[in-house]
């Protein structure tokens, strides 16, 4: 049986920090060091078996001090989840919820109910490390998904292929892999029977399965024949020979840069099948794989970037700005851009980079030093050192370090001609250095 390779190198704070970025939202103070002490196996076990959730840190509120109203207030759903990412004691659980939100990308644009979206989110949180087969069953009858991909419009009288197609194309098999247009139509027939009502002033209610709306006839799906219904539809997709390769490749892409090699791919598929489509062992193997530690960096998504900066500083959710800021940077939670989710290879352009600049600005605002009162050394190297200490000494590329140093030198040189400038410019340069570090490619990737 093929074995998945495991990382055998040194597992220090640097490796633990990378693990925390991939399996969570970056380290809080002391977290990387504490995780490193557990060793690789212990660290991964702690992440994949986290115990009951504890939320650490100040409770979330808006700028007026009001608690969040995630079911009702626009944008508060985003804040509510961002808060979980910042405060959770189970980072991988939240990270997997984010993976599934992207995998089963459902947008409130089509659902129009924050309550239904958060209910779906709960599903991803409670079942995200369990059986994929069970998760897909739950997703298939999830009200938000039924609305989003017209599952409750699909009936024996008026078939709607939307969910059937996406279930195969995006959730289980991949575009054009192992199914035909006939399979799409037959799957749609098998998936008939879900209903809901519309109530004015309330919205979509009374989600149910009604056999009267189900097409009970024989269907032929992937060459199998039977009077299939929705559970069969899911079972057949998950049991399809092309499913494990799709599953493994897609899951891998959320954690490691580049594709798995053929051996790793085969070993992960074997692991997935032999565990009965269990997610946890596959994630465990990926988190221990050498490519995670020795391979390339990944660009943080806007919410991972935001949560990570807040975690670094121990700051909680105390403003509602994160919703529009993350939207500006290209990722408003519960509003993925399309059924295929966010494109993790295309986070940045000139507008979304500016969004990240403003995220960093809002993160730093409460910490900005007053040039009229604070004191900072009139020494470029010391300023850079102190700005890095503010962020708890992230590793920077030599060119970023050089750029920071050059900036500090230039800023201080401008102040040579007056004593008040020497005092104030050093403080402003400190504020600026913290901002430049936060938007550097070093902190936008991990």
């Amino acid at each position, binding site marked *: 049986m093929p074995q998945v390779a495991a990382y055998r190198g040194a597992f220090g704070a640097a490796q633990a920090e990378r693990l925390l970025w991939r399996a969570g939202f970056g380290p809080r103070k002391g977290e990387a060091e504490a995780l490193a002490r557990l060793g690789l196996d212990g660290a991964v076990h702690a992440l994949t078996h986290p115990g009951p959730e504890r939320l650490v840190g100040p409770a979330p509120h808006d700028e007026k001090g009001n608690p969040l109203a995630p079911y009702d207030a626009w944008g508060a759903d985003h804040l509510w989840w961002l808060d979980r990412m910042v405060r959770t004691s189970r980072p991988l659980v939240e990270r997997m919820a984010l993976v599934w939100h992207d995998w089963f990308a459902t*947008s409130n*644009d*089509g*659902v*129009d109910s924050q309550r239904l979206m958060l209910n779906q989110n709960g599903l991803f949180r409670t079942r995200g490390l369990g059986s994929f087969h069970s998760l897909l069953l739950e997703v298939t009858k999830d009200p938000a998904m039924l*609305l*989003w*991909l*017209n599952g409750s*419009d699909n009936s024996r009288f*008026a078939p*709607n292929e*939307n969910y059937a197609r996406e279930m195969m194309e995006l959730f289980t098999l991949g575009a054009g892999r192992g199914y035909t247009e006939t399979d799409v139509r037959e799957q749609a027939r098998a998936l008939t029977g879900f209903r*809901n009502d*519309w109530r004015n002033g309330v919205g*979509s209610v009374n989600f149910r399965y009604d056999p009267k709306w189900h097409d009970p006839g024989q269907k032929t799906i992937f060459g199998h024949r039977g009077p299939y219904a929705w559970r069969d539809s899911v079972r057949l997709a998950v049991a399809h020979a092309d499913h494990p390769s799709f599953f493994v490749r897609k899951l891998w892409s959320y954690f490691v*840069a580049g594709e798995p090699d053929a051996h790793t791919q085969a070993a992960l598929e074997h692991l997935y099948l032999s565990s009965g489509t269990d997610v946890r062992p596959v994630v465990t193997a990926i988190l221990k794989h050498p490519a995670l530690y020795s391979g*390339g*960096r990944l*660009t943080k998504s806007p919410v991972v970037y935001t949560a990570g900066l807040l975690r670094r500083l121990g700051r909680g959710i105390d403003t509602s700005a994160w919703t529009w800021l993350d939207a500006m940077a*290209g990722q408003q939670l519960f509003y993925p*851009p*399309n*059924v295929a989710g966010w*494109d993790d290879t*295309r*986070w*940045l*352009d*000139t*507008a*979304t*980079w*500016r969004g990240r*600049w403003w995220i960093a*600005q809002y993160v*730093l*605002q409460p910490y*900005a030093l007053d*040039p009229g009162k604070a004191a900072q050394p009139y020494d470029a190297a010391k300023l850079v050192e102190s700005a890095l200490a503010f962020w708890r000494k992230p590793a920077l*590329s030599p*060119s*970023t370090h*050089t*750029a920071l140093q*050059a*900036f500090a030198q*230039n*800023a201080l040189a401008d*102040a040579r001609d007056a004593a008040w400038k020497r005092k104030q*410019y050093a403080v*402003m340069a400190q*504020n600026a250095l913290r*901002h*430049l570090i936060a*938007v550097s*490619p*070093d902190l*936008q*990737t991990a």
Partner: protein
Amino acid sequence: MSSCNHCTGLSRSRLLHRAAAEAGRGLPAIEPGMPLPAGTGLTRRSFVAQGLGAFLAVYGASRLGLDAFDAGIAAAATSPPQQVLVSVFLEGGADAMSVLSPQGDPLYAKVRPKLALAGGVPLAEDERLFWHPAAAGLTQLYGERKVSVMPAIGYTHADQSHFTSRHYWEVGATSTEIRTGWLGRYLDAVGTLDNPLQGLSLDDTLAPALATAKVPVASIDGPDRYDFWSSRVWGQVEARMLDAIGSLGKPSGDASYDTVAGVTAQVDRLRSQLLPFQSVDDKPGFTSPVTYPASDDAFPRRLAGLAAMLGAGLPLRVVALTAPGHYDTHSNQAGDLAQGLQLTSDSLLAFQRDLEARGLADRVLVHVWSEFGRRAQENGDAGTDHGAAGVGFLIGSRAKAQMVGEFPGLAKGLDDDGNVTATADFRGVYASLLEQWLGVDAGRVIPGASSFQRTSVVA
């Protein structure tokens, strides 16, 4: 918003539409040694005189910073001036039969008992059609032979979904599978890898028509709004900080890192390019030689900024904006339509006058379009429902000023659903614009380009 159970199939088309907008997001890294953006033929001296000169007087040199200065000059280097196409979208399906009311058609009053317009200025080319009074600005430009009118533009078997039909117009094909915009594919064919301004969306998000597969494009609220600052950092230190952004954009050999570094370098370039326009104390950093309509809507401000950017010689090729107004007039059509049309039309007149004053009018063509027209027969709610062929315009000093297609008449020109049939295909207009205005083989951009009839769009 009403029940989504009623919009079967909406999600996928909406998603495809969104996906098109997202397609332009992949911005390739800048490699060392890549050329600077194509400029617009201004010398260093003229650039300073027209753009930075005025700017320096306002802000002082320290705020600008030397790097930005040099980059701005270099960006406006030596290539010949580019023709610019400006796309203006009337979102929602503008009622062609109100913008150009067929008062000379005997059936008009019958199908529009409440909404029929009366009086106004007839079109010289078709005296059945009358300009909407709110479109006085366009009427004036038409009188100066600067407008080509498209009274029934569209395609056969018009899709009546907003999302699907606008997607067709955005991608330049009646296909839901294409993920790049027609203007984006034009840029992929002729653009450069390091000039985000070549495709500029003056909007909160990228216009899907500009979505590229290869080259970078930019989205900004307005040239005066691409700002960056930091709490408690100002004066010389702020200028140094902003200049330092570009120095963070150095490749390190890691693919993801280098992608971010590449975008960082683009941000630095774009910021430098737009620096002269930045607002200070809520006043834009540019002046206009004409007065634009006063409005809370961003449209006139964005057009004023666009003219100023062109005046400063920034390397723009295609620009997309959304017009002000509500054109999805299922009810209360008379008031809603007039309001949006008036601001759009007045703003476009001001823009044309601005370009004329700056000596740029020969370089710019404006294309106004909407995803469809509306049902000939009005509904019971003093409004109209989704239709087929719609209205469009090509505006500019070099516009051919010759009608594209014709109004087919209400007696014989309606399809089985009672919608006006198209007498000109939007893809034929796109192909003509590509070939006659932008100078590129339309076959490289529009699928099946050879099958669409060309029309003379440039004088």
